[in-house]
């Protein structure tokens, strides 16, 4: 039960919009006379809330599916429709200038109660039509080999974008290593993200994982040199250095054998 309450609290944020929703439900319960609308937008949400907080139902869903997504049951609450409709009904019940004052005040109240989505720092101006960093596009275009897959070690900030752009560029680890709660440990990743990269160990591990390329930020400090470990500088793009394993075979596979790693 505690998990469910926590999920509800997390969903509510500061809770003002949910408060408006509950008040809107109460208003419609008292004022709305049309039976079919009362059934759908008053009774159904109330039953859904009871189901959400039902510990037996919660236990069942937690057992069958990922408990983290239990909050999505709250998506079934028609919060937006109910609040907007109740506000519209109040507007309709007023006469003269009062209705415009109410509409303006309600709009401001809703804005203040919520949080403007485009103020979210995760929103950024897109650099290209792919909506991923241009450096990822440039590096993938540089290392890809037509007709086969290649594998490259990328720094953490690029992991979530590489395979959105190009499915033929494979990686020894991906986004799973940067999500802390998944607890995926990867020595190669830790090596790449260390303050000072051990070049010899990095080359060894990358080769072990059949990586044709290593991409490192130009600002990364390195103990030793990758070029001493048979990795050559393939290019420098957008502040990143691309190292290529000079011992790796990147020729096209024979006909009929496919280009998979």
């Amino acid at each position: 039960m505690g998990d469910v309450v926590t999920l509800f609290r997390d969903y509510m944020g500061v809770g003002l919009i949910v408060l408006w929703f509950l008040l809107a439900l109460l208003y419609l319960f008292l004022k709305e006379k049309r039976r079919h609308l009362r059934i759908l937008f008053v009774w159904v949400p109330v039953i859904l809330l009871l189901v959400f907080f039902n510990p037996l139902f919660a236990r069942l869903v937690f057992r069958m599916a990922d408990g983290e997504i239990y909050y999505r049951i709250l998506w079934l609450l028609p919060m937006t429709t109910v609040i907007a409709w109740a506000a519209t009904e109040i507007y309709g019940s007023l006469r003269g200038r009062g209705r415009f004052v109410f509409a303006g005040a309600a709009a401001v109240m809703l804005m203040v109660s919520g949080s403007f989505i485009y103020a979210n720092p995760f929103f950024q101006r897109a650099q290209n039509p792919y909506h991923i960093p241009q450096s990822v596009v440039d590096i993938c275009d540089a290392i890809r080999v037509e007709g086969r897959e290649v594998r490259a070690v990328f720094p953490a900030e690029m992991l979530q974008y590489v395979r959105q752009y190009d499915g033929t560029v494979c990686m020894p680890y991906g986004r799973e290593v940067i999500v802390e709660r998944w607890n995926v440990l990867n020595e190669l990743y830790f090596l790449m993200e260390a303050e000072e990269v051990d070049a010899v160990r990095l080359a060894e591990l990358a080769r072990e994982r059949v990586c044709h390329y290593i991409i490192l930020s130009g600002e990364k400090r390195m103990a030793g040199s990758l070029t001493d470990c048979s990795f050559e500088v393939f290019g420098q793009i957008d502040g990143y250095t691309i190292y290529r394993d000079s011992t790796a075979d990147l020729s096209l596979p024979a006909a009929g054998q496919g280009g998979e790693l």
Partner: protein
Amino acid sequence: MIALRVLQLILWLFVIPAGAGSLFFLGKESPGNGFAGPGRAVFAWVGGQILLWAVFQLLCVPVILRQGNYSLVQRLYLAAVAVLLCSAGLAALARRKKPRLRLVEGFGKGDRASVILWVIFWALLLFQIVQAIRLTYADGDDAFYVAVSTITADADTMYSKLPYTGETTWLDVRHGLAPFPIWITFLSKMSGFKPVSIAHLVVSPVLIAMAYGVFYLTGRKINGRHSEKLPLFLVFVEILVLFGDYSYYTVENFMLARSRQGKAALGSIIIPALFFLLLQLLEYLKEKKKIPPAYWGLLAAAMTAGALCSTMGAMLCCMLVGIGTFCAAVGFRRWKILFPAAFCCLPCAAYALLYLRMG
């Protein structure tokens, strides 16, 4: 060349769905018949896309489970769309009615307040569409869903490679039961644009517009057509969506920030569409009208489309329709509606069972 590709997208995202949706206007009591003017166009577009998503789901999942190639899904889907469009075309010929394509509601009809509210609504909608194109939202889940679309386009295989790394793996049944990313691959293949562009640049704004289409239809049912209450309702909806980032989990956050993901389509299009359809069911009951088979077809399609969007969609859709129809049956003493409603839940129940057994 680019113009041709854009034209393909317009065809697959607007024209073909609207054509398929015209099937819901057949017969005297069909679900779309209560709408005229722009409402008719919006109903055809949204209803048609929901129908096409359901067809895609029904064709794609069996191919995924049999570990078939994407190309087979594409061939089957194209054939199914051709059949749907031919049926719609023949039906339209039989009716001999010209389609009405008035898309802008309200101007010149209402009083000044109504016109101002419609202008605000369209301006805010345009703002959100421009932002969806101009801005990018860094969401880690894209590394999975968009990568699945890209891999499918590149390798012609579905859910047999790890999206994060590219390594070959066992069939990922859990995600394969909700193949919304494969639909994005389909749009990519049809248009020639990369899946990553389709997902971020094309699908996002279109689905945002479609979500407002559903709110428009619901608003018209609640507020009537000519009243200024309809545009006011829509403006309030827009404000609630735009200021809906009060937590990371809200459906409004998914709608504007992660619109290319199936779960966003579930929360912002399918679930509101189910509310709209339940409202329509309650209207039939209130007016003591016979419920047409096309209505149940559309309800079943919406639920199946919910399963396409997210594996949890199957459960959520069944919950909502179950509770909604039960309340309707109790409220109007029409117990018989529970049988066709249960029938509509069958595809979702089947996907849920598959998830429990194989996922």
